[in-house]
């Protein structure tokens, strides 16, 4: 768990932590409730959730379906305001930023992006410059340079001239990530980015995110239900279950067998790998009966 004392001090903005990294995102006792109308009882609530993300850190928001992951993502992205508590990016509440400023600071990558009309991948990446332009937003030399750099960061320079529709799932995901990087954000938010990827592309994406966090000093927050990937790549895990934040901490602290079995409603084996990271294996019920 993150210590409550430090998160209180962090409200003012950048705070030097032992690791030497500045706090980018500070989520403090943030909660939310959905209701059909203002009068009726809420149909879903997200209980008070607190965690922080520093630069160079990869935070995973982990939980099964309907655990409140998407709600928390929207709170962080600032598209909804918390019912209580605060969600701050470098000391400013994300929901109070205007759309333009918010897009300059937070980039959100969704699981799938569908262009109705075919667009070239390079031009798609240039859309990331939208929050910096005015009126017609004809691309400047600088914009093109930034877009090229973003494509290089995801290893997709060769895809610039292809249309989005021609790309494979993994290639498409890289282009969407490049567009987010072209926004030059302070915080990179990803919503189930591995959902439509095969295992090779999943690992490649997470490795790339790790690299980006390290080299370009991004704070990265990934919403996912992929237990194995989180165990391998995340610095901190925010574990959600039925709208309640159960644990916040490094994978080794959060990955406890009984806890994960209860949250994911599946028999699991958790063991500690050689690098100090936990490993999760699915245990079939049949083999359990046999032993």
């Amino acid at each position, binding site marked *: 768990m993150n210590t409550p004392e430090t998160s209180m001090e962090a409200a003012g903005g950048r705070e030097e932590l032992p690791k030497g990294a500045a706090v980018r995102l500070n989520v403090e006792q943030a909660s939310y409730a959905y209701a059909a109308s203002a009068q009726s009882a809420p149909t879903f609530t997200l209980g008070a959730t607190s965690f922080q993300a520093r630069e160079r850190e990869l935070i995973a928001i982990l939980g099964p379906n309907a655990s409140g992951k998407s709600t928390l993502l929207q709170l962080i*992205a600032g*598209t909804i305001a918390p019912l209580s508590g605060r969600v701050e990016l470098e000391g400013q509440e994300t929901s109070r930023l*205007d*759309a*333009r*400023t*918010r*897009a*300059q600071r*937070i*980039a*959100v990558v*969704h699981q799938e*992006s*569908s*262009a*109705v*009309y*075919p*667009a*070239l991948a*390079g*031009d*798609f*990446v*240039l*859309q*990331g410059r*939208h*929050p910096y*332009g005015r*009126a*017609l*937003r*004809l*691309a400047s030399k600088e*914009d*093109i340079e930034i*877009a*090229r750099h973003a494509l290089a960061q995801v290893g997709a320079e060769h895809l*610039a*001239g292809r249309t989005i529709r021609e790309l494979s799932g993994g290639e498409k995901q890289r282009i969407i990530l490049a567009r987010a990087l072209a*926004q030059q954000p302070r915080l990179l938010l990803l919503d189930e980015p591995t959902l439509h990827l095969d295992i090779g592309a999943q690992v490649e994406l997470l490795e790339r995110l790790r690299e980006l966090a390290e080299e370009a000093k991004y704070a990265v927050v990934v919403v996912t239900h992929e237990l194995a990937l989180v165990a391998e790549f995340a610095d901190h895990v925010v574990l959600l279950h039925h709208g309640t934040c159960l644990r916040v901490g490094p994978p080794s602290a959060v990955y406890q067998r009984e806890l994960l079995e209860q949250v994911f409603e599946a028999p699991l084996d958790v063991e500690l790998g050689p690098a100090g990271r936990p490993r999760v294996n699915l245990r079939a019920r049949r083999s359990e009966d046999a032993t």
Partner: protein
Amino acid sequence: MRPLTMKRLLWTCGALTAVLLGCVVLALKLGAVPISVTDLVVNLGRMAMGRSNELPSEYRLIVFDLRLPRILLGILVGAALSVSGASFQALLRNPLADPFVLGVSSGAALGSILALILAPQFALLTPLGAFLGAGATIAAVYYLGRREGQLDSATLLLGGIITASFLSAIIMFLMTTLAGRDLRGMVFWLMGDLSTPVPAGLRWIFTVGLLAGIGAIYTTAADLNLLLTGEREAIHLGVDVTRVKLVVYVSASLLTALAVSVSGAIGYVGLLVPHAVRLLFGSDYRLLIPASALGGAIVIVVADMLARTVVAPTELPVGAMTAIAGAPVFIYLLRRGMR
């Protein structure tokens, strides 16, 4: 990477303007009374130099009092319908969206007809009725399209289609029961017709309204590109989605109402032109909107020229021309694009 540049924007629009001017000259020349191009150029020159009193009187009447106003009206109507079609397509992320599909045209038509039936002695009330009819339809369709406080694209489109068919039924009912007197004129107008000149008092309002509507939509062109990839993504890329939608929805509806009030329900233009432009020049709205405006103007000028000449001296409604020519061309362009 092939981002839109100012150079490409200006070249494309310049080329389309040249085509439009060529079509205008041709439309001035052709008609029940043929006129030679040389005479036309000489007289247009005189006109431009402010020496219009030197013109032969039959020229003045045919070319400048009859054909030219009609061509200018066609240019404005074509531009308005195409831009509103392109806007609705982006707004609803639906290639089938069109002022006609959404029922806005039917609402405007019904408003006009009601004005004509209730107060036939006041000609000015017809376009006013179209305004009110379109305005009420927008409000109704907008209301139908809202779900949980959000404008829902699918519900909006469905609401529009239902509204359109409902209003068409009322128009049919009114026409068959009440209007025995001038049924042919009304059918003409319903199918889209440019032969009725715009009353002098409305010309400026009409022109300024159309240009303002197109201009307002153009300010959101870059936002519309993002809206096309998805509303949620547009929000995360810094688009004030609610504002953009409102601006585009109101402006596009205004364009439709103005166009219908002066020329009736000319179909296919709002659907056909933006798609043709997309296949020719790409789908970037910063280019698509001005190119659609010019393309729509070209299509209407040519269609009206054909409507005047194909079975001369009888005239066809221009809406019939756009429908007959529109469908096959559209299918051709669509199939070519898919290859």
